[in-house]
């Protein structure tokens, strides 16, 4: 439990790590938009290149980056297969590559499948690199609180949400440690969590969950008292130890992302005009 780390944060010293978390949230959102704007082969090639550039910039080993993709292999394979078999090229003179009873595969379907694969990969890797890999959860919470602050005008309790996030992050390791203790205690009394049917094993968890909840409520009560004693009274008039500040690199990064979106839009327009390679 000692080596437990939150999320997927990968400590390294790169430009992406040093960027202001707010700038990273903005860039990540813009990157998703960009990947949806891609329409033809050129823009997808550009998307692949940008993802590779981001990986290199972040100084995060390829192995670590691919780990996050692994969880999505099934979804990616599913969408790819669906696209290959379902897309019918209705344009003039389109000949299916394979026409075997009920299976017809057009070249367009294969392109579509490839495009969607690239889009999913770029989105997952891109947002991961901007957010989870290079930003600690607590910095991310700070960034979201700061970016969503305008919503307080329409009575969204932004500060309360961010406080809840912080407390949750603070108590995850504490409660995990406690779970282990309770499990050991129940094992010492002969509890068995590893054998039997699924229903039986689920039932065996009850003597863990009940004390865990009881203790979590007691903790919450004590923490609330301690916070009150430390003059907590909501977000009003609160100052912050860590002040987020934009640096030149943040503006440079946002400029490049904007340029990237502009480039993709331009490629789309020219692509349609001159009939460039496969357009979605």
């Amino acid at each position: 439990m000692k080596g437990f780390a939150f999320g997927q944060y990968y400590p390294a010293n790169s430009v992406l790590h040093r960027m202001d978390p707010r700038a990273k949230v903005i860039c990540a959102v813009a990157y998703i938009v960009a990947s949806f704007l891609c329409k033809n082969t050129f823009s997808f090639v550009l998307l692949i290149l940008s993802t590779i550039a981001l990986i290199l910039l972040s100084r995060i080993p390829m192995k670590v980056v691919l780990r996050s993709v692994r969880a999505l292999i099934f979804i990616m394979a599913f969408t790819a297969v669906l696209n290959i078999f379902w897309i019918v090229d209705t344009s003039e003179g389109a000949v299916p590559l394979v026409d075997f009873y009920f299976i017809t595969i057009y070249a367009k379907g294969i392109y579509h499948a490839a495009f969607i694969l690239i889009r999913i990969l770029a989105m997952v890797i891109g947002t991961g690199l901007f957010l989870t890999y290079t930003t600690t959860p607590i910095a991310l919470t700070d960034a979201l609180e700061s970016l969503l602050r305008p919503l307080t005008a329409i009575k969204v309790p932004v500060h309360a949400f961010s406080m809840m996030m912080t407390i949750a992050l603070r108590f995850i390791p504490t409660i995990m440690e406690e779970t282990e203790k309770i499990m050991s205690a129940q094992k010492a009394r002969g509890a068995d969590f590893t054998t039997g049917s699924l229903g039986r094993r689920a039932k065996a968890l009850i003597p863990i969950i009940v004390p865990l909840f009881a203790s979590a409520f007691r903790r919450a009560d004590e923490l609330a008292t301690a916070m009150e004693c430390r003059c907590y009274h909501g977000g009003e008039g609160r100052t912050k130890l860590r002040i987020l500040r934009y640096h030149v690199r943040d503006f440079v990064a946002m400029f490049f992302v904007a340029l990237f979106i502009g480039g993709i839009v331009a490629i789309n327009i020219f692509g349609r005009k001159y009939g460039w390679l496969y357009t979605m």
Partner: protein
Amino acid sequence: MENTPFIHIENLSYSYVGEDGQPIPVLKNLSLDIREGEYVVILGHNGSGKSTLAKLLNMVLDDYTFAEGKITVDGLDVMSPDLTDGDVLNLRKNVGMVFQNPDNQLVATVVEEDVAFGPENLGIPQPELRTRVDEALATVGMSAYARHEPHRLSGGQKQRVAIAGIIAMKPRCMIFDESTAMLDPVGRKEVLETIEKLNRDEGITVISITHYMDEAARADRVIVLSDGHLMLDGTPGEVFTHSDTLRKAGLDLPQCTAVSQYLTTQGIPVCGEINTPKQCAEAILNAWGRI
């Protein structure tokens, strides 16, 4: 101002509301004065009302239906019905509280941010905020751990971080509600030394609630509560001479005091103030020399 006590408690009674709506008395007609700069230990068995007293001083109890009497802290009437939110904040800023379980009072995921939590709530601007956090961590000897995660620290270290979190609010009085009860001997020693340092060097009034007699022996003044009543009040030496009263309150004498009293009853006159092992040893040697 010199003669008015920092905390003044007069005929204080408090009862919790039972499940049937009937009052369950905890504190009964208690009167007490605590002066600025004192190091007071409040002793009492479980259910003697000592924690309730501490919580009343910080206005963190849920229900005040059965609260009677008067508490003033630094001239502020805490029980007054027209107490404003600002008054309560000011009270909590002046009287900081450290609790028993170190895990359940740390809020942030990084030590220095937790220490900053109190002053942040008070709206202390930068760069003063930074200075306060650094100074508070230095006072408790935890500067090297400023960037650590609290859950990786030992119990004593966590408790010292909790203390730093209070110091950073610059309180004039600190209440320790059994703050050493969950710690191992090393952790307890660290925390006790920190408490003594705060009282001696920073001039902070310390009210420490405990049931460890050896902690009481180190204080300037010991107050014994039993069943919501004030039983004894005096220096550790004075209080420890009433061994029968202490036993009635469910408390034992510190070992060295008990040893010296036993020797005296056995005809070996071990006298003087005996609260620490060293004092005890010297007194026995003295008595030996006399025989």
